[in-house]
């Protein structure tokens, strides 16, 4: 119920804001068109009507699953987004995997030996990872790996293949090559974040009595890390990553623009430039819905990972 209210309020805000930005008709017609032609276009898109009528039309359409047609492409906004979504999802998932695979072990290592040289080096890297602007690093990566070394393609999405019913460029070598740079670029901030979370969690959990008791049982360090440390630090990490996954999808715009990745971010940036209102509105509503769903998913995963938040049927 709350979610519906959030979506409704969001649509209201988005719709009124975007009407302030500028007149899309100026972008759509040839500047040399005759006034009556401009009027015709305006009428065709329903832009001659008062804002509240436009909003009412949009709202009734939205309730029946129609978020309007793109002014530029003349096709439904939802269809356009659905076409682009797999590319963005693939980029976000890859970035998330990279972030966990690199960030988690480094963070745990730094947390286990907080005063060691390695730990200090790792934490220094994480500060860099958080502070370096994504777009700058993306450009530097292109210069290094594509222009100078010539190892990786500059832009675009590579060949795709279908595996287990999913079409993705993760399953071809060419696709992976195309994916490597944008995914790493997008992951960079998250690597640093996972690293810091993992380190903080590790130092906190390792100081707990149950770790000491586990050592008193004669368990090996490896067993302690695997069975006692990991499950405990994963709880906060998964919570944060769940929400961060939303930001990966929603705000991959910068990375997608730099690497010309044909995803949602690219679509919406172009739509903003062209004042293609239906796309912008649909995209923003999609992002809101995405966060709502992710919050729910995180709550569910949380209950799976932490027995203390599960619904209690049995007595204490």
């Amino acid at each position, binding site marked *: 119920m709350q979610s519906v209210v959030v979506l409704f309020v969001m649509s209201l805000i988005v719709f009124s804001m975007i009407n302030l930005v500028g007149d899309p008709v100026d972008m759509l017609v040839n500047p040399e068109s005759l006034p009556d032609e401009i009027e015709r276009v305006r009428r065709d898109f329903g832009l001659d009507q008062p804002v509240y009528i436009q909003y009412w039309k949009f709202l009734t359409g939205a309730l029946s699953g129609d978020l309007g047609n793109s002014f530029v492409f003349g096709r439904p906004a939802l269809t356009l987004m659905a076409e682009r979504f797999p590319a963005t999802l693939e980029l976000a998932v890859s970035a998330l995997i990279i972030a966990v695979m690199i960030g988690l072990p480094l963070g745990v290592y730094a947390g286990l030996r907080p005063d060691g040289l390695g730990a200090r080096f790792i934490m220094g890297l994480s500060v860099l990872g958080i502070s370096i602007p994504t777009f700058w690093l993306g450009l530097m990566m292109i210069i290094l790996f594509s222009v100078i070394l010539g190892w990786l393609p500059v832009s675009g999405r590579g060949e795709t293949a279908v595996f287990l019913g999913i079409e993705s460029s993760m399953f071809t070598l060419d696709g992976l090559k195309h994916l490597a740079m944008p995914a790493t670029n997008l992951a960079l901030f998250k690597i640093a974040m996972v690293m810091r979370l993992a380190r903080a969690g590790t130092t906190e959990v390792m100081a*707990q*009595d*149950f770790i*000491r*008791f*586990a*050592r*008193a*049982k*004669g*368990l*090996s*360090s490896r*067993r302690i890390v695997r*069975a*006692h440390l990991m*499950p*405990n630090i994963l*709880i906060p990490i998964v919570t944060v990553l769940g929400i961060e996954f939303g930001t990966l999808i929603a705000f991959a715009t910068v990375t997608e623009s730099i690497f010309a990745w044909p995803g949602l971010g690219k679509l919406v940036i172009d739509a903003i430039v062209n004042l293609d209102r239906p796309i912008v509105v649909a995209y923003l509503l999609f992002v809101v819905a995405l966060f709502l769903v992710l919050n729910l998913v995180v709550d569910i995963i949380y209950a799976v*990972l*932490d*027995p*203390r938040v599960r619904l209690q049927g*049995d*007595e*204490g």
Partner: protein
Amino acid sequence: MTGNKILSIQGLRTEFPTPHGPIVAVNGVDLEVARGEVLGIVGESGSGKTVLGLSAMGLIDLPGKVTAGRILFGGQDLTRHTEAQWQAIRGKRMAMVFQDPTTSLNPVQRIGAQMIEALQAHRDISKDAAKRIVLEAMVRVGINSPEERLLSYPHQFSGGMRQRVVIATALLNEPDLIIADEPTTALDVTVQAQILRDVRRLCQDAGTALIWVSHDLGVVAQIAHRVAVMYAGRIVEQGITNRLLKTPSHPYTAGLIASMPTNAKRGERLRSIPGGLPQLSNLPVGCAFAPRCAQASAACDVLPELVSTSAEHAVRCVSPLNEAA
């Protein structure tokens, strides 16, 4: 020493470096525990009794370190052990029970798994076989419907139940020695009494030696054959429990006994020892208790040795009480 000593600690010193100089938490402690014996270690918070227990288990966290002395356990000097050698002993031949049962168990792992892993760490044993042993151990410490309880998580247990789980876990591998660090302090008085009785019985049955660390002389009196009193990292007196309680030689021991609520008359104010523990990083040169001691004299400026007054009793004081006894 003879073969019936399971643990013999000699001149043990454990230090924690700080920017203001090292804190010597355990300062030259000599201690012996015979097979099947129950030794109580008494002292107030900060006296070094917990650190002593952890040192004996090799569980001192860096930067803390055992800097001198020997820990002879079953004839081996543990201070020379590598981490791998320690792991083979911990939980198998020497086990530990901690003070707070609410934090001793991993909150996100089932009770059964936490107990089974203690067995599997030391024996090549199938999960089913381990489970059978665990179930028996749970019954022995008085946990009802253990089959069900195996699948529970720690938060579904009361504090007393959790401590029973911890104790059962410590007993799983039939160790020669259990070090219990204030295991009943965090529990209700009634639960405390039950657990005290159960632990004493279990150790007796299995012939396990027990070191019971506590600040509560009353609890120690109920369980220990012998008592060692610690003050500022040193043992100031040790002896047979009954005799030590009746005729203490060290003024500090006498003060502790006088402070026990059970020794106060109805309506009387509870007694206490004036002053507080000295800074461990800045100990007085002589007797550390002298500043709080009514009997203190100029002679106390030199650190007294721990002197044996009889085969079973020793005291570290220049003018011990009850000398006639």
